[in-house]
């Protein structure tokens, strides 16, 4: 059908004669000074970001004599897992010398229930704020968001008093409650914005069909909110796993999370420091959030940017 396309207009045209005239795409040399600068800068910053990870991992596989020789860049002469075993099973965290493993399990015991409870409460809350608004609900929400910027130190002591009165200070319940409280602003915002983006006709149709608060939540809203749940999950698991302050204040000596134990291994160690054990312990503590980060990829980016950009 291309013959129709060549039907020329009424205006006669001057035909270009030179064969070397520009034709086709603009010539684009692969190496321009601009491009070299661009990639050089990106590579420079990448090295800055990667360097600590490299040092951390390499050091953890070395022996102490090799470390004392003093080249943090060098690959280990011989890879040894001794430091890793010691960090996991027998490094001293202050009074006891059981390694990081108890801290790991404490962190698991804190993270799982805290994540589940905080996400569930925030999801229901966000749903109520969008579809079941009542007088004053928006004021409460505004204070909630505003309160999230207040330094935790302001609430710390009164919360200690409250949990002590309730008889749960220094227990897992206390940490779970605290994480639920301080996760609520960002998670509620996340769910509120998400539910508000769903078509309101869906909710109205369900109301007309006679469904109530919980039935609509569980049968209509939840099945549609999988992506936002994943985002919230990533946000909470990494956030709670990485927490230090609440763990050290509220968990009690029996339940200290991994971050606190790690800090104790490195910073309150007696005798000569074992840097390979320290770095192995550090890698171990960073492993859970790193795995989540690398597996979740773009969702993690969405998670960290979600509340922020829309907020």
């Amino acid at each position, binding site marked *: 059908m291309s013959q129709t396309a060549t039907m020329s207009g009424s205006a006669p045209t001057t035909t270009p004669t030179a064969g070397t005239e520009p034709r086709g795409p603009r010539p684009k040399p692969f190496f321009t000074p601009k491009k070299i600068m661009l990639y050089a800068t990106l590579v420079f910053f*990448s090295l800055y970001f990667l360097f600590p990870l490299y040092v951390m991992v390499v*050091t953890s596989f070395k022996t102490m004599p090799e470390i004392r020789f003093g080249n943090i860049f060098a690959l280990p002469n011989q890879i040894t897992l001794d430091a890793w075993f010691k960090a996991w099973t027998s490094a001293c965290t202050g009074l006891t010398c059981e390694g990081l493993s108890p801290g790991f399990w404490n962190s698991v015991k804190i993270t799982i229930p805290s994540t589940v409870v905080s996400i569930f409460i925030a999801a229901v809350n966000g749903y109520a704020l969008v579809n*079941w608004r*009542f007088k004053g609900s928006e004021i409460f929400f505004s204070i909630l968001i505003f309160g999230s*910027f207040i*330094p935790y130190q302001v609430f710390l002591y009164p919360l200690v008093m409250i949990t002590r009165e309730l008889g749960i200070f220094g227990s897992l319940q206390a940490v779970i409650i605290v994480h639920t409280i301080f996760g609520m602003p960002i998670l509620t915002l996340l769910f509120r914005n998400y539910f508000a983006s769903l078509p309101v006709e869906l909710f109205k149709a369900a109301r007309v069909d006679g469904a109530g608060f919980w039935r609509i939540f569980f049968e209509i809203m939840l099945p549609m909110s999988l992506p936002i749940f994943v985002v919230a999950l990533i946000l909470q698991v990494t956030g709670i796993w*990485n927490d230090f302050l609440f763990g050290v204040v509220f968990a009690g000596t029996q339940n200290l999370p991994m971050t606190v134990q790690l800090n104790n291994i*490195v*910073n309150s160690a007696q005798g000569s420091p074992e840097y390979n054990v320290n770095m192995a312990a550090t890698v171990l503590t960073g492993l859970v959030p*790193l795995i989540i980060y690398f597996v979740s990829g773009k969702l993690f980016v969405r998670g960290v940017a979600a509340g922020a950009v829309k907020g």
Partner: protein
Amino acid sequence: MADTAVHTREGAEQAARPSLLNRIFLHNLSGKIAAIPMMATVLIVFIGCTVWTIYFSFTNSRLLPTGKFVGFDQYERLFATSRWNVSVTNLVTYGVFSLVFTLGIGFLLAVLMDQKIRFESAFRTIMLYPFALSFIVTGLVWQWIMNPTLGLQGTMRNLGWESFTFDWIANPRMVLFALLIAGLWQGVGFCMVLMLAGLRGVDEEIWKAARVDGIPTWRTYVSVVLPMMRGVLVTAVVLIGSGIVRLYDLVVALTNGGPGISSEVPAKYVYNYMFGGGNIGQGLAAATMMLVTVLIIMVPWAYLEFGGRGRR
């Protein structure tokens, strides 16, 4: 605030003129029950605890919050304590540098990432992964890298560069910049992601229009795109700022306030007095000062953002 909720069945089954009590408690009952955790958090924690902290900061409580009312005594003592004054100075210095560099480098990296580069997702992964880590992990890694004898400095000297000096962590005048290097390492990637989202949110036709107008790329970024990103910039400043005020874990892990008290910060001061020093009144006064600082930053912002025109 309009009650826009669809009338609930509970509401519909009320008598024609429900009593005031019914209107407050029974109307939209499920919604209210669902919001109980939020209301409790707001009333008990965000309002109640704040008031409690402010009130007891005016007492001479030591081991238990039972002291007598002593007016501004705790605050006078606070500002007479060199450790507090160093903490505040440190926070301001660190805060200014951190804010400027995080925003500056974050924006620069976002612009570079926006140039249709190859391996974009690899670069993003590399820049953002530190953000997934705990401040404790970040602090300990950098503590090791900055170890004067066995870290970067020792390595360079062993390799023959005798004058190489990177002992900031042990140098009272430079220790804040050691904190800054670690803090930037963790936070810049996040700022970059925020900014990149902002850049990508700019209508593509704006870019086309600027090209037709013959505006150079850098000029378009500065004169057109950056002003359009006001919302993202404000968000970034607020998030970075509230992170700075909370600065605690990183200091504990990297320097533990040392050498001496040269890298102390307010959050650490509060913690140490409350749970270590047995001087609750003093810790609460310091916490209240942190609150006041945040309010001084937040209230004008909230007014500009939501005041005047009403919320949204």
